[in-house]
């Protein structure tokens, strides 16, 4: 059974490899985004040494590593699930002897793994040549970072699955999916580190899973969060992962009872 899931990862990985044009343009797009935000933040800092607890060098590293982490955890599971539900193929998938949601998760992981090895690693080299990025020297910090972006992937995929499953309950969840994407980019810390928000917004965000997706791992990577705080950050991620399992199971149960295929 496990090998079946591993195969799913492998197949998705190879599928991504087949669409190489998207891959090249993807690298350029990420470089453009990192560049745009690099210059914007440089202008924001002006003469200031530190803002929101980040030094200029830390901020540059933060932007670069956040976008690279986003390359790894980003996937379109919400859209895929919603499409499966809308065209009815989810019903076929449900009859198969595997767990549909786990399958989706594995496919997302295959995609992430593809981007991690062929995109994030070379991308990080290129970016650190162009921009003054400071990579950590402590191997332990690298290790924690990789564990943390694994949890970023899990949490982000969980949110995607929940958004996708909404297609069971409403006929068109297009708006919800777009809203989710905007919310994750803005609130998770890809565009602005959470500490830059006004105090009330920051503490409010502390009660959402968003900062666990980008802000926490990137802060650990830049050294803004270190030592015991870094372990605490990892614990926060684990907690969110565990908590988010509950609504998914509830929705999955409810949706299996509700399944009606539009035009099916």
């Amino acid at each position, binding site marked *: 059974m496990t090998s079946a899931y591993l195969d799913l990862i492998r197949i998705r990985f190879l599928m991504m490899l087949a669409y190489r044009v998207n891959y090249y343009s993807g690298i350029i797009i990420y470089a453009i985004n990192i560049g745009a935000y690099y210059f914007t933040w440089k202008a924001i800092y002006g003469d200031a040494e530190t803002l929101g607890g980040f030094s200029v060098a830390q901020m540059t590293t933060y932007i670069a590593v956040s976008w690279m982490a986003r390359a790894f955890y980003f996937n379109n599971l919400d859209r895929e699930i919603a499409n499966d539900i809308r065209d009815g193929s989810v019903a076929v998938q449900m009859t198969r002897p595997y767990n549909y949601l786990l399958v989706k998760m594995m496919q997302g992981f295959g995609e992430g793994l593809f981007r991690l090895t062929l995109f994030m690693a070379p991308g990080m080299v290129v970016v650190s040549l162009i921009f003054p990025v400071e990579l950590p020297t402590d191997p332990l910090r690298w290790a924690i970072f990789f564990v943390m972006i694994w949890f970023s992937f899990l949490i982000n995929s969980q949110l995607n699955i929940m958004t996708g499953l909404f297609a069971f309950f409403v006929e068109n969840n297009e708006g919800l999916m777009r809203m989710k994407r905007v919310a994750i980019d803005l609130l998770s810390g890809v565009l602005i580190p959470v500490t830059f928000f*006004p105090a009330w917004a920051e503490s409010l965000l502390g009660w959402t899973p968003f900062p666990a997706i980008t802000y926490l791992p990137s802060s650990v990577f830049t050294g803004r969060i270190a030592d015991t705080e870094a372990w605490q950050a990892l614990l926060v991620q684990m907690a969110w992962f565990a908590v988010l399992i509950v609504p998914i199971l509830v929705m999955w149960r409810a949706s299996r009872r509700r399944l009606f295929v539009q035009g099916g």
Partner: protein
Amino acid sequence: MSLFREYMANYIKTKLTYRADFWVEVLSDLLGSAMNLIFIFVVFQHTSSLAGWSEAEVVFVYGYFMVPFGVFGTFFNLWNFSERYIVKGEMDRVLTRPAHSLVQIMLENVDPPSMIGAVVGLAIMGSAWSALGLPFDWYDPLVLAGLVLGSVLIYAGIYTTLAAISFYSDAPTGIVPLMFNIQNYGRYPVQIYNKAIRFLLTWLLPFAFVGVYPASFFLDRQDGGEMMALLTPAVGAVFCAIGLLVWNRGVKRYRGAGS
């Protein structure tokens, strides 16, 4: 003109069947803009100026950007051009009719919800205008209309060229999102970028003319931006002409997707 009326009537008939979708689209359009504005607001809590631009000025530039972008989005909804017209072969149908092919395709894909973004943009400009205490001259609305037209033509030219590429080669899937990301640069004052990017945004992919340059006409900044603003319609005309040229040549080359 009567053709336009007919197409609009048709559009309204199809859309009224899915009324909820209309609002969903408007809302998610505005949400993207809201995200960018929130970014600006949060950033200006930590600094008073962005390379010499105040918060109200940056917001003003963004508001201006939304106006031509909304108009462009309404009339040039060509995102799935190669998929729908080339791959599925709808281009053949278009070409058998007497009206210009580009006009037909524009009208078939009109997207009025985008217009609301333009209206919101105007409102944002208005509020930033009064916050800055700018003088209001009788000719300002006329100049604004001219500049917006120029900016729309720039977008139209660039994206028509991109859409026309599918006449020449297979679907260039990666290019449109690429362009979409480059145009992000145009929303902020170009002064914050280095020389290479500034040159790119001014002369090669002139997205700075869909934001900073025309907006600085009204901001009285005296940094050369006003002169650049007056170039907007000219740049628009040039890029629109390029777009049309590439399009017309592409249509001549077009042989259908087979079958």
